[in-house]
């Protein structure tokens, strides 16, 4: 096998010229950035934000029926699918016999949630979604990270999320609403 020669040329070994070339590279970079700040990819976070996709899995919300009651029928499929076991549901009997159950309590522990989206995949009623676009979740103690049913129901989708018609599988819907 032929030995590849790895000898540097005289010009490179003197090094000074190479330093000048390097200096030219850095100064052109710097002047370009000084003249046009938009070339710098830094996002000045609280004032500027990176645009997020409408498909981003963020903080959860519970969806409501046309009459304002939660769509959730407390079937426990989301709690079962959840790998982080962060969903706690306390079911109660619904007066409407076609619905059977409703969540008296619905709590998500955001400190445990891994934002995998399995809960919205599992839900047969399209009752839970992660489309609020809220990804800055902060608090001073752990209790701030338990979100309860009322807060979940008050959640709004982020701008740009298209409306989806009510699912046919949602129990308790009257004929006109389907």
């Amino acid at each position, binding site marked *: 096998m032929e030995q590849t020669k790895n000898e540097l040329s005289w010009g490179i070994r003197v090094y*000074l010229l190479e*330093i000048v070339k*390097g*200096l030219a*590279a*850095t*100064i052109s*970079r*710097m002047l370009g*950035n*000084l003249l046009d700040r938009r*070339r*710098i*990819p*830094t996002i*000045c976070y609280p004032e500027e934000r990176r645009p997020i996709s409408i498909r981003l899995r963020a903080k959860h919300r519970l969806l409501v029926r046309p009459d304002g009651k939660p769509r959730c029928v407390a079937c426990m499929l989301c709690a079962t699918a959840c790998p982080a076991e962060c969903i706690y549901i306390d079911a109660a009997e619904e007066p409407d016999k076609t619905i059977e159950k409703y969540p008296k309590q619905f709590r998500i522990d955001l400190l445990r949630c891994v934002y995998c989206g399995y809960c919205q995949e599992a839900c047969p009623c399209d009752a839970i979604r992660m489309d609020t676009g809220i990804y800055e979740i902060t608090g001073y103690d752990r209790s701030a990270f338990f979100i309860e049913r009322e807060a979940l129901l008050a959640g709004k989708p982020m701008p740009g999320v298209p409306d989806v018609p009510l699912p046919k599988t949602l129990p308790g819907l009257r004929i006109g609403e389907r």
Partner: protein
Amino acid sequence: MNLSRLLDVEFLAMVAKVIVIPVVLMQAVPLMVWVERRGSAFIQDRLGPCRAQVLGFRFWGLLHLLADAVKVISKESIIPTRANRFYFLLAPILVVVTALMAYAVIPVADTVTWSDAKGRHEIAMSAAQVDGGIVYVFAIASLGVLGIMLAGWSSGSKYPLLGALRVASQMLSYEVSLGLSLVGALLIYGSLDPNEIVRSQGHLFLGVVPWWGILFQPIGFILFLVVGFAECNRTPFDLPEGESELVAGYHTEYSGMKFSLFYLGEYVAMMTFSSLLVTVYLGGWQVPWLPTQRLVALGGPLLAAGLQIGAFVAKVALFMWLFVWVRWTVPRFRYDQLMRLGWKVILPLSLANIAVTALVAPLLLR
């Protein structure tokens, strides 16, 4: 002592110089830190620190310096148990004091002269007038290295010690070339007095080009520049604080104000070196094409001094920027490369420079 002497212009000017020059030097350090941070950021496609604000005004990140000062002063003073207390505290002081002292002989403008009823007044624009000023700078600058070595040794910790060892050998290797690379220029000037050196760079070559040292000592200039980077422990020769292998080198155990004294010392040493370089090779305070006599004739001694200080500061600022610029361009040398460059390249070249200058200069100067 005659009390009326206290009101003499010369005496007051002396006091003013002794106070103003160190204060300006120390105030220039945070500014340099700002240039270093923001400059490096823009070189690397970042924004750099720019978020500290007062009433919504950010002043391009300058307020971070204020915040840093508050932080550094209010930090706990930590002295490791295994450190030698006395030398540990002495080291940063030594570094700063020597760096500031070395600046004393550098003239920032031509001697200001005027006459009034009391007679003729002369005010030299350097804190001290030493005939062998260049030798004085070298002597004091070498003392600063002692401070760094002391810091490394007295910390009682292995990484600072390794940093100190590196400083010692690096300084030994480069101190020799530092002096020798300047000898060529000094042979031509025939003087060690910085003010005299600058004055002899005042005339024009062929009536067009300012006859500055860089024109008749280009090799000496490049050698002195390279060696100066090594003497200031700046990249690419910052092995004593090579953070990738030595944590932070000689100042690993230092924190708070003691750490920032090293920082201060480093930047002041850079300024001293830049000023020396400008004095010897770039005409010092000379305003190009405008000698002192013409400036005085145009607008009086004060305007002349002001313009000369401006020219001097501009030239020094150029080299300060070069320090920053090179730091964010050239990667650090390996230790053996550093030694090879010092002993096998720079030392022979500076000796050759002296030999050639000594042979050619008498012919040219005749």
